[in-house]
């Protein structure tokens, strides 16, 4: 028991990546030592009681099995106060001990240090957006090494749960309130996604639940600072005429779970032919409320231009629903700025230049250099 205490206290010291064993995966955060030690100690207790109970069972069954012609024995004990008390009190004491150390670990898990670096996390069906204090946004969680990181998390639609097995942390994202979790990872991965730690959604959220996984990349502080600055400006740095094919596919990655490019059926309408539909609106009913594109788009209508319609469909997706689709799309208000919307619209206008997966198939014009 002393060793648990000493390791729990030592938790504040810098940990290193632990190798995976039979039970637990490789670990790389400050929480690993506490959780893993606790897990293994509980295992030892379980092994002991399992062997005790099953061992007694096997021995008794073998020793006292009925044999041909054996008579019913009547000399077994029917009760024993001392035994009953001992197997009530000893497990009780063990349980109180386990509770206490689990509680100590939980306090560490839920109390972020004051100097932690905050990242805002938004989950939606089915993806994650990570926002940084300088306005940068990313689909992958990139954090500095050797510094406590606190995730301030919210959900746009239903329950999700942020689970990073290598860090031994998990917390639900609940619509309508903020939840937090924190960790410190001292083992950098660089910007190589293959080396990143898994981040899973652990709370069931529908069709794309099992594909809501992302990577956590850990960078040394100087490299992280550089990445952060660059990330904040990535949309602005792209020249206007390159926006749709440079930014478009990146942004489309968030849309592709529901909207195909080649007409394949999905949870939302395919983008195939979308620009023709909205720029030459016809009068035939297209929406669940019976309205047509021509009812909504055009001078003096609800949307003066087709661009207005697309933009509002991204910001207020439930307002007009294309038949027969349901109201399932989350809003991207606050996540996609005007320039992002511009890139998406540009991509819709030039869909013939993209393959079915959203990769741009033309070569980069040389003239812009």
């Amino acid at each position, binding site marked *: 028991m002393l060793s648990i205490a000493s390791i729990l206290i030592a938790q504040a010291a810098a940990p290193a990546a632990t190798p995976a064993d039979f039970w637990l995966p490789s670990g790389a955060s400050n929480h690993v030592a506490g959780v893993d030690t606790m897990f293994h100690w509980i295992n030892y*207790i379980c092994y002991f009681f399992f062997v005790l109970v099953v061992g007694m069972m096997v021995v008794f069954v073998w020793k006292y099995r009925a044999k041909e012609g054996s008579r019913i024995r009547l000399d077994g004990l029917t009760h024993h106060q001392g035994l009953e008390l001992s197997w009530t009190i000893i497990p009780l004491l063990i349980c109180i001990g386990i509770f206490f150390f689990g509680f100590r670990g939980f306090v560490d898990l839920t109390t972020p240090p004051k100097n932690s670096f905050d990242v805002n996390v938004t989950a939606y069906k089915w993806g994650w957006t990570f926002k940084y204090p300088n306005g940068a946004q990313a689909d992958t969680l990139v954090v500095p090494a050797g510094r406590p990181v606190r995730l301030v998390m919210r959900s746009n639609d239903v329950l999700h749960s942020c689970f990073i097995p290598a860090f031994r942390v998990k917390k639900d994202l609940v619509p309508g309130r903020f939840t937090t979790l924190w960790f410190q990872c001292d083992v950098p991965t660089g910007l190589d996604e293959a080396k990143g730690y898994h981040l899973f959604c*652990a709370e069931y959220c529908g069709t794309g639940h099992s594909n809501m996984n992302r990577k956590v990349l850990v960078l040394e502080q100087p490299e992280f600072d550089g990445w952060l600055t660059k990330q904040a400006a990535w949309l602005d740095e792209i020249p206007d005429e390159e926006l749709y094919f440079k930014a478009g596919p990146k942004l489309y990655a968030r849309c592709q779970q529901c909207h195909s490019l080649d007409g394949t059926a999905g949870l939302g309408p395919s983008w195939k032919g979308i620009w023709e539909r909205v720029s030459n609106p016809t009068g035939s009913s297209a929406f669940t409320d019976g309205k047509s594109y021509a009812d909504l788009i055009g001078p003096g209508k609800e949307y003066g231009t087709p661009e207005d319609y697309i933009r509002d469909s991204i910001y207020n997706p439930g307002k007009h629903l294309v038949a027969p689709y349901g109201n399932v799309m989350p809003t991207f208000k606050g996540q996609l700025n005007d320039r992002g919307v511009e890139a998406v619209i540009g991509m819709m206008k030039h869909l013939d230049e993209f393959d079915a997966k959203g990769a741009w198939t033309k070569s980069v014009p040389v003239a812009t250099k």
Partner: protein
Amino acid sequence: MSTVTAPRPHAVDHVDVPDNYLTHSRGLLSWMLTLDHKRIGVMYMGAVLASFLVGGVFALLLRTELLTPGRTIVSADTYNQFFTLHGAIMVFLVIIPSIPAALGNFVLPIMLGAKDVAFPRLNLFSFWLWIAGAGFTLYSLAAGGFDTGWTFYTPYSTTTTTGGVIPVLTGVFILGFSSIFTGLNFIVTVHKLRPPGMTWFRMPLFLWALYSTAIIQVLATPVLAITLCLLIVERLLNIGIFNPSMGGDPVLYQHFFWFYSHPAVYIMIVPAMGIISELIAVHAHRQIFGYRFIAFSSVAIAMFSFIVWGHHMFTSGQSGLMSTIFSLISFSVAIPSAVKTFNWTMTLYKGTISLTAPMLYGLSFLFLFTIGGLTGIHLATLNTDVHLHDTYFVVAHFHYVMMGSALIAMIGGLHHWWPKMTGKMYDERLAIAGCIITFVGFNVTFFTQFMLGSQGMPRRYYDYQPEFQVYHVISTIGAYILGVGFLTTAVCFVQSLRSGARAPANPWGGRSLEWQCASPPPHDNFKTAPRVGDPYDFSMLQWNPAEKGYDVDPVREAAAFAAEARGEQARGHA
């Protein structure tokens, strides 16, 4: 009158089978409108086993889909519907009614030496409510199915576009009332219909377990009904209760849901523990060890079950203080469970253990419940639960408890009371083969999932990382073995019905009252009021080779009753 002496042809057929509840009246209506608790129990058993088959087929489809990452046989949406159906069917249609409503209905009144339950009409009504609830669940499939998970967590359940959500909620609501009525019936029956001489501490432990279960059913299930009503109201009328976009709180739903569904876990396991007390004592022919501790631990578990629900929510966003309190209280459930396990093990000590099929199921239960119970410690502990919550570790844990323990006990109980219910014996070797294959298949399937979960694989995943595949393949192979095990058991039972040898009144050497009436029991259970003795005093039993069953040595029985009378007299004078 002289012509009557020649027997009519149809009477000749039954000349060696005395009138019993199965032959008492004939025709479909005589079953559908029966007030006989035994027939209702048998109908429940048939319905539960049919549901078990459906839930089991979904389980095999799930495991097959998980053989490879990505699509194996079905789409993600279909997979989500499959695991939801598997969970909902197994919880609401199979495990919750299996022991109390099916076995309990058959056994409880006979164990009490009573003619029937206290309210036979209510009993029949609760069966038909079950059928109606199952009907709504079935209808929900036609209405578009549902993909909410059996927990119906909001706001997903109030916003999903699948059309079967409201029908299935209605179905579960109705099933809840079926459960409440059964519980109510059992409480009154145990209080009012015990025969003279059967004090509380003369009751077989199965009755203590059913009584404790009934209390939970009556107190907790209404909360589920209210919760589901609120969910329907929110989904149908857009009144914001749980959905934050309408001013509700999704965590509130989790509190409501688990306030029922954690006690529901004990609705499933406590009666199973009662069966195990019977199986182990009867087949070891040994006075049960620590009767009072086992009896009181059932009541203790029933009480603790109401105050531990928050341990399902350590990562939900509930306050850290609440998580801490719920963690502490959750450990309290470990104590009565441990007490029971040790008492069962000690009952084997100096017994005369017959390794019959029911006993092997009892021993399987001890093995599996020990694993299921001990892994609960990992999940009650705050910091390890944060890592393990919503992973396959939880899936493995509750399958060890719900299936490895509750269902295995149910099937063990079915083997134990099968001769009594049907009047037929089964092929013991085939039954033992079924038990062993099931046991092996179960462990291969679910022990693997402990590692899968602790290594970080979240539950309810259609697609997964390639490093998890080896565990999934092993688990799926185990599931097929498990399927073969249950199939073997099914073949054994069908064979028994077709050509089983006639069962004696007391094939195992039980001492509780149901073994004192014929197999199958007559319509009224007992012709004369049975004599109530100690249900675990096996001293007067003797093997009767002609009957191929046990009977009571009248000399030793008289001696036992005389000794008891002297004891009572002595206590009376003191």
